[in-house]
């Protein structure tokens, strides 16, 4: 298969558009990846012959944090982009402003594929690492759709401040917790935008549900499944899905797995039905655990922290006294009063076993290329200042 990689074929959008138009399948790799093109090619050597045309391959992280290839059928993804066009009422949208890497399934499908098949303009930026370019793109936006992840909001706030971007008429969030508490600010920043909470996973390529932000006051509510998609909760709480748009195969460590459409796949989250057709996320499967016999949900803790802390926040896990333990990192460093607010929120809503073992501060959160906090870097990289600890 043809390899398309940002680092070797700039501009990526042009190379990607060309690859999308060919029959030959292609692999889209991010600029920085631990999986080199030669390894990708060798991993795909055992792929079914039917994947040679009309398909594409994205790189994602598996449940172990190790790289995994997700294989999609172009026809399915085009069908999903058309379904999103209807569900998100995108007829009047003229362009997609891209602040995320196009190799990320969310930006790839919601923006690149949607723009390509609907003949809309794609405005690709270098992301919030190049804030001047981003602000210029947002200033120049006309009837634009913007896709963000929640962890980008503090950085956007830092750079954009009190500016307003009325040219953005659709604002989407996905790829993590929906920043419900930031909605007043976002409505001021993008006064003409309809805001949506999208939910999915790489294996779904990527969308499972969409809801309007004003359809719920609860950040964990991800809305109802898109037409044709089925959701179910396993007995252990894992959210399972079947979808006509989802991946057709996975490749992990050279092992090719062809997915059966009848098979229920796990999204990686715990969830429960709300009752009105929508679903409520309860946390990542690995982010809900027991500590000193008490259930700890990092999603619930993060929601409580964000209710009082406007900056960035993320958890990483470590082991302490034979128990799983979670460390909260805030960025930038809070002043003493803000730290007391966070501690008070923990006291109000949670038992001591559920509190983090430490609260640390960094100037900025280390992030993955897709904008999500990098848990491994949070645990391993120096530079964190301990603000508070449990002394257990």
């Amino acid at each position, binding site marked *: 298969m043809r390899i398309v990689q940002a680092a070797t074929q700039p501009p990526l959008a042009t190379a990607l558009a060309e690859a999308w138009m060919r029959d030959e399948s292609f692999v889209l790799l991010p600029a920085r990846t631990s999986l080199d093109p030669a390894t990708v090619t060798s991993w795909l050597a055992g792929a079914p012959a039917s994947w040679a045309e009309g398909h594409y391959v994205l790189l994602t992280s598996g449940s172990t944090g190790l790289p995994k290839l997700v294989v999609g059928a172009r026809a399915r993804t085009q069908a999903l982009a058309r379904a999103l066009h209807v569900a998100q009422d995108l007829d009047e949208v003229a362009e997609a402003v891209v602040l995320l890497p196009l190799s990320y399934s969310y930006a790839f499908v919601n923006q690149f594929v949607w723009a390509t098949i609907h003949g809309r303009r794609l405005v690709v930026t270098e992301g919030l690492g190049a804030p001047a370019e981003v602000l210029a793109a947002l200033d120049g936006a006309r009837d634009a759709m913007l896709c963000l992840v929640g962890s980008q909001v503090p950085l956007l706030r830092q750079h954009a401040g009190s500016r307003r971007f009325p040219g953005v008429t659709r604002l989407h969030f996905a790829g993590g917790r929906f920043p419900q508490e930031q909605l007043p600010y976002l409505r001021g920043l993008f006064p003409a935008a309809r805001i949506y909470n999208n939910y999915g996973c790489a294996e779904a390529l990527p969308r499972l549900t969409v809801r309007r932000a004003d359809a719920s006051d609860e950040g964990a509510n991800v809305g109802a499944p898109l037409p044709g998609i089925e959701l179910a909760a396993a007995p252990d709480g894992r959210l399972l899905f079947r979808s006509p748009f989802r991946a057709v195969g996975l490749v992990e460590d050279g092992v090719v797995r062809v997915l059966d459409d009848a098979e229920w796949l796990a999204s990686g989250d715990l969830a429960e039905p709300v009752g009105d057709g929508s679903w409520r996320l309860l946390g990542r499967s690995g982010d809900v655990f027991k500590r*000193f016999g008490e259930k700890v949900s990092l999603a619930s803790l993060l929601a409580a922290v964000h209710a009082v802390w406007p900056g960035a926040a993320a958890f990483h896990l470590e082991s302490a006294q034979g128990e799983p333990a979670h460390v909260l990192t805030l960025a930038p460093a809070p002043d003493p009063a803000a730290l007391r607010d966070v501690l008070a929120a*923990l*006291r109000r809503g949670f038992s*001591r076993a559920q509190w983090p073992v430490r609260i640390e501060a960094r100037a900025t959160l280390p992030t993955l290329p897709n904008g999500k906090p990098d848990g491994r870097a949070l645990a391993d990289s120096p530079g964190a200042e301990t603000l508070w600890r449990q*002394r*257990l």
Partner: protein
Amino acid sequence: MTNHDKLRDLLTDVLLLGDAEYRTDLTRREVDTWDSLAVVAIATGIEETFGYHMSEAEAMGIGGVADIIVLLEQRGIPFGD
């Protein structure tokens, strides 16, 4: 910083008390966060802050801030400041 100040900082940190909530006559029953794990955290903090290692019985027998002060004074750590 006086020993009273050190103890106040330790307990407000361990129990997540607001500044106005801390009193020297505060009892364990009044503080919802003064649970069994807090007892362990307080004992650890006492050792780190005052250099005194509390026995399990001493830690479990503490009923409030005043008990900690009495215990530490009995071990030669003054709170008369």
